[in-house]
């Protein structure tokens, strides 16, 4: 799973896993470690699959963190890969156990498609979220009323109860902005149109903009406004986010939400391009201090 090996990199151990919360990332982490161990032992995916009474593609899914682990399978694989050190085995099994415990968001299964659950799992474990939004205020910054207006737009036929569940999920996600430790940095570039489109009406929008202004007071939140007259040439596509993890071994993940699913990119050839675009956007957008001034002006005129 490692991206580029460099001299001076410390070998990964369980310590770095300690700082990560959320089963999605733990699964990816454990899967990557199992893959490295398997390759180091010179064992094919077919052979490993046979050992745990499963197919080659199951091994592939396990190593990519797509599925949860049976502890017995992990133990059998470790034996097959020649890992006999008791401490190391215990560390890996402990990781498997934690990777299997559901995140708080699992109770929203009813209103959350799988692809979004994955996103939330990743989002909860990030150290830095960079996001570019053309249409809406980013989900992490939305007020309850604004979130409700957006949700109703997207789910016109949903019952009132379902809408409330969705809004509640969105507000729960925002807890990562105030959790006691391991706060991620959130760095957003928001297009002026998203700030001007009065979703939910002028009052809702004014409250939303005031909330944004408040959030910019937080040291770990950065907001940059992209004025109408700038930035057009940087983005051929639309909104996207880049998630970064403290874990040195985990690559950045680009997240692009579509109408019926989401796209996750993690290969350097692709994520480099999005990072480049995000860098251009950040350099072109108003700096944070000027963005705050513009936000205040917008609030006065809305």
């Amino acid at each position, binding site marked *: *799973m*490692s*991206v*580029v090996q*460099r*001299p*001076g*990199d410390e070998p990964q151990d369980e310590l770095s896993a300690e700082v990560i919360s959320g089963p999605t990332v733990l699964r*990816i982490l454990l*899967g*990557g470690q199992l*893959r490295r161990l398997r390759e180091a032992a010179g064992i094919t995916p077919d052979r490993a699959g046979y050992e745990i009474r499963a197919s080659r*593609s199951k091994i*592939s*899914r396990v*190593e*990519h*963190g*797509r599925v949860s682990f049976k502890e017995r399978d992990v133990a059998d694989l470790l034996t097959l890969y020649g890992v006999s050190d008791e401490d190391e085995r215990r560390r890996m099994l402990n990781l498997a156990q934690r990777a299997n415990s559901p995140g708080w968001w699992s109770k929203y299964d009813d209103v959350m*498609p*799988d*692809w979004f659950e*994955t996103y939330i799992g990743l989002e909860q474990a990030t150290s830095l979220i960079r996001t570019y939004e053309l249409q809406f205020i980013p989900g992490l910054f939305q007020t309850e009323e604004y979130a409700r207006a957006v949700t109703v737009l997207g789910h016109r036929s949903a019952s009132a109860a379902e809408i409330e569940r969705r809004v509640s999920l969105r507000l729960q996600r925002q807890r990562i902005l105030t959790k006691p430790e391991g706060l991620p*940095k959130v*760095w957003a570039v928001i297009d002026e149109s998203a700030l001007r489109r009065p979703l939910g009406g002028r009052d809702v929008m004014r409250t939303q903009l005031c909330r944004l202004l408040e959030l910019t007071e937080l*040291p*770990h939140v*950065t907001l*940059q406004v992209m004025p109408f007259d700038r930035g057009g040439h940087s983005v051929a596509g639309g909104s996207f986010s880049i998630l*970064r993890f403290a874990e*040195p071994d985990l*690559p*950045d993940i680009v997240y692009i939400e579509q109408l*019926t*699913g*989401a*796209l*996750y*990119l*993690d*290969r*350097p*050839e*692709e994520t*480099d391009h999005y*990072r*480049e675009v995000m*860098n*251009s956007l*950040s*350099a072109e957008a108003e*700096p*944070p*201090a000027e963005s705050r001034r513009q936000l205040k002006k917008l609030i006065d005129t809305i």
Partner: protein
Amino acid sequence: MANSHAWQVGSQEDNLLYKYGDSGSQRASERAAQMVSEGAPAVGDTAPAPGNAPAFDTSVAHVARVYNYWLGGKDNFAADRAAAQQAMAAFPDIVHSARANRAFLRRAVTYLAGTAGIRQFLDIGTGIPSANNTHEVAQAVAAECRIVYVDNDPVVLAHARALLTSTSEGATDYIDADLRNADEILAKAAETLDFGKPVAVMLMAILQHISDEQDPYAVVARLMAAVPAGSYLALSHPAKDIHAAEMAAMANRLNQTMAEKVTFRTKSEVAPFFAGLELIEPGMKNVPDWRPETAEEASSPAALWSGVARKP
């Protein structure tokens, strides 16, 4: 979009699985290394003028991103990784050296904010934010410290503005200026710093980007003339006379792959930067030997002359 490179969730196709670290990433670095060996990205007529390569242009290695790679960061691109690896092939200890330089920065700022009681910092050549940035170290000692970061690159500055945020008691500001324009830096920094009170001027591994023809000594002298008695200069500079052969080979490679050219200097060439100032103990040293706090720090390989000096 829906090719095997993507992780398309919702798809049942096995070949669209979330793929980590298989041959894809390795191919990228191999290809990048190959580009460098062919001289494609940087060398030749199309290379931008020294110091004018914006970080927008990711096809050419950029000093801030190469440094980021050595420090284990993720803010680098194929050309940067290739250039960094080329340099590592010439001087494998550059990774330790870069990290030892960051450790020197931390110790120097801790000394300046602590023992020396400095509350104002002018940090020129900020680079991409890393661990233990100047304001974090200084404000951990005294929350009211004011720090002005200076860089000449718009993307580096955008990162600094977003990620190097001050305590509420203190202040951070970010100036878009080139070290060669000391007067511009001083004029803009005066909006945040009080030049009637002592200032620590920090030049960490940046003066190598100013050639002898551009007179780096005059630049430093101009900066130090603008600050009052009791101010400090904290400086590190890649050494020409430590691991001399490897450093010369690395300089050659960097000058082929990066837009910003480098001039490494000997101890006697670095010493004049401190002219008229009083070096504090232990004087000019290779970075690990400047007040190391642990045996591990002291034993790190490195090749940078460093010192902290007070203006009398």
